[in-house]
């Protein structure tokens, strides 16, 4: 990112930020800002909304107007903003806990209404801010402070959930896949209706160190080596071949143009 773009979108007066060294959230923020900037949007017509969590701190560092809401409710607040002023570009930053646990109901309904928002979920598979308790996205067997011998309940696939609930755009990438992530966010910003981009991120503090990622790079490398393109997975399935259980899918899951709510005239 050029110094000029950085200076335009970021609030240097808010530095230093609260993210831990090695946290993946900053990468996702940068990808988002690049995509927003590439859209030609301006500080005055863009607003960032978030709930509560490490991920939800992101809007606080951005120069646009921002609405920092209660835990889980970002989408409900953002719906109000968009309906009151459809001319605003509304982008939501959220976390797996904020979006899928306490805010799960708002998530499915925002997808169903297909409200014109772009939602970027930094999925670190844990409640980072409160110190590493299990979330609905903690994979089975993974350690958190509330699942000291491994999570027993199955995790949500957030992107599949968005597709099933009616979102117009849904994609998943990781903090390793910077170029792909920027492209996906850009596509989400362009698509009218509800756009959901899930970015898996490393969280060395609350997740990595409990789950055998001794270095930040190890988790990033894991995301690189265990990401399988959706098309490849579908091809393997069609050919009746096994998809290894430890792989997760990335790519664009849906892009469609169903009637949407709150689209600017």
């Amino acid at each position: 990112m050029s110094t000029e773009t950085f200076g335009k979108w970021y609030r240097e007066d808010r530095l230093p930020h609260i993210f831990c060294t090695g946290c993946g959230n900053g990468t996702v923020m940068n990808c988002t800002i690049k995509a927003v900037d590439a859209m030609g949007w301006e500080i005055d017509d863009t607003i960032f909304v978030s709930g509560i969590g490490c991920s939800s701190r992101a809007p606080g560092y951005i120069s646009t107007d921002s609405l920092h809401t209660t835990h889980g409710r970002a989408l409900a607040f953002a719906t109000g903003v968009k309906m009151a002023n459809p001319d605003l570009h509304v982008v939501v930053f959220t976390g797996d806990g904020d979006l899928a646990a306490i805010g799960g109901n708002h998530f499915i309904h925002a997808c169903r209404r297909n409200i014109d928002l772009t939602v970027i979920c930094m999925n670190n598979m844990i409640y980072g801010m409160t110190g590493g308790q299990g979330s609905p996205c903690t994979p089975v067997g993974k350690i958190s402070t509330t699942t000291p011998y491994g999570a027993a309940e199955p995790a949500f696939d957030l992107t599949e959930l968005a597709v099933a609930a009616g979102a117009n755009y849904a994609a998943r990438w990781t903090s390793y896949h910077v170029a792909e992530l920027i492209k996906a966010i850009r596509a989400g910003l362009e698509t009218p209706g509800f756009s959901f981009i899930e970015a898996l991120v490393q969280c060395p503090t609350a997740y990595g160190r409990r789950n055998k990622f001794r270095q930040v790079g190890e988790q990033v490398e894991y995301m690189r080596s265990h990401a399988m393109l959706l098309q490849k997975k579908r091809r393997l399935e069609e050919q009746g071949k096994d998809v290894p259980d430890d792989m997760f899918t990335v790519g664009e899951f849906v892009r469609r143009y169903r009637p949407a709510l709150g689209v600017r005239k």
Partner: protein
Amino acid sequence: MLQIMEGSHAIAEAVRLCRPEVVSAYPITPQTHIVERLAEMVADGDLNAEYICVESEFSALSACLGASAAGSRVYSATSSQGLILMAEVVFNVAGMRQPIIMSIANRALGAPLSIWNDQQDSIALRDSGWFQLYGEDVQEMTDQHFIAYKAAERHDILLPGFVCFDGFILSHTYEPVDIPNQEDIDAYLPKYVPYNMLDAKDPISMGMYATPEYYHEFRYEIDQAMMRSAAALSEAGKEFGEIFGRDYSEHVVPYRMDDADVAFVAMGSICGTIKDAIDEMRTDGIKVGLVKIRTYRPFPEKEIAKALGGVSAVAVLEKNVSIGSAMKGAVGPEILHALNGTGIGVYSYVAGLGGRDIRKKDIRAMADLAAQGKGNMFYGLREEVL
């Protein structure tokens, strides 16, 4: 035997000894260390309970209500936004007369967001039908859990209760604490015997619709049970004292009140600072005392009137604000009512909101203001930022 323990862990130990059969909670700072420790105890087999890891506080207390209705001893813990999110269920638990005990690590409410301490969260739910106990130190807040279960589960009470303590100041502080042993607690707090429960062989319905002919009386009965809980809590506190040597039969505790002109009234950890400030003021010849409130609901009006009888002015230190009210704090008007007709001046001082420190010199300043008949105000405003 005294052990050095973090406040949250001491509470987790107390909860383990109470043998709840179901624990459900959602993490929120500064409550997290309690529930993380309980999750670990359940996972390690040290606590034979179901730990239900839910997706929000709303679900946590709902799961607790279901488990209690099914006849289990149940525990939860929360703070601030979590408690407020639970509010609908909080009222329902009391209305269905389920004796659930919940720890409240007191924390300010948003917006603006604050993770720091005041007592706005539990005080905002004072009318919900849960009794409310406030601890001053780690030992007191730990012991209050045993007493709470013992009183709550009595069939002439059947009310839920909060055990409140200041977030971070007590939840995250290490103090020497005596943790009772299991045998003694089992004798003090035997297995929970539900008054009634969901049972397919003898079906009942809970939480049904009440017409205007009945609703009024339901609320009356909850209030009557709450008034009776004063004696139940006192008896439970006395019996606890007989076994464990720490008596909690009193709902209010006086400190250097014998010849006091000005008396403080306060709840929670700030009482420790107030006592230190009182000792200093006393050396300077200022006659000040403290009446600490342990039980805020049911409100111990008679005991307060008795304890404050001889003073000329009362300074109520309020870690809450009743926005738009004349006295500003929520506790002050009830003290005023307790002292109705005595002519004693009662003044509220809203202080320590959102984690602002209350120092000894602030206590001294409040005593001064009360002596001059000034109060019912936000104390210590930073005029330069207004």
